[in-house]
């Protein structure tokens, strides 16, 4: 990073750290899909990328483009809200489908229907 860079060291370091944190969490979630045992356990791993992982990348994006364009760029907030509302829906659909099939098969690992 040279002195005549349009960004400056602080922006580069902050953006880079946030992106690395987000990417690291997404990678950890993907690794969790591989390492965890059952279907229900694996679903927990995916939420790493969709919560703090996504949050870090979006904050990095907001910070980077706000500095670059010298005005507040905050439309990433819409992505945050839409992700927070839609991710649980798909996860719940998956877990309900798995629970339904496990109960039909008479699996002992899931609690019986009330």
């Amino acid at each position, binding site marked *: 990073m040279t002195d005549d860079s349009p960004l400056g060291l602080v922006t580069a370091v902050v953006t880079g750290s946030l992106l690395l944190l987000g990417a690291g*969490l997404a990678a*950890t*979630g993907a*690794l*969790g899909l591989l*390492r*965890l045992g*059952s279907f*229900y*356990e694996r*679903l*927990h*791993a995916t*939420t*790493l990328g*969709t*919560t*703090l*992982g996504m949050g870090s990348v979006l904050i990095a994006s907001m910070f980077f483009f706000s500095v670059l364009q010298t005005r507040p*760029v*905050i*439309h990433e*907030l*819409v992505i945050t*809200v839409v992700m*927070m*509302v839609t*991710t*649980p829906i798909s*996860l*719940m659909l998956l*877990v*309900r489908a798995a*629970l339904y099939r496990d109960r039909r098969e008479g699996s002992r690992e*899931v*609690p019986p229907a*009330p």
Partner: protein
Amino acid sequence: MTRWLPFPSAAAALFAMWLLLNERVGAGVVLLGGVLALRAAQSLLTLELPKIRLRRPIAAAKLLLVVFREIVRSNNAVARIILGRKQRTSGFVRIPMDMRNPYGLAALACIITSTPGTLWVEYESAGNTILIHVLDLVDEEEWVRTIKNLYESRLMEIFE
């Protein structure tokens, strides 16, 4: 509310989203966004949703802070579980609920599912209980207390 503005908070949220996506405030943007938000809110009437009253914005903001803190904390915990070799058991916990408000339950479902380490599995309306899956289950009673004290009491304050 009225026939022209049935869901004011939904309309306001859609309008704010429109402005954010356009990134500028001009007469045309405001007019088009306003009409779209109004029409979208009116179309919600066909779903025949139960009435919603959002009171206590301060309590809602406090809840948002709690959720944010828990998401950061449990991201760390789940990442450690995935990367480490700790012995642990996962399992289901059934939690009796006091809250019956459908919006409150929907919000709780979103909160529990988006917090890594806990997963909303089902809601059983006859006994008013919920079933969650916990990745690192040590003490069932503690989870019941945590969910009720941390989230349910605050959500009841907001929605009921």
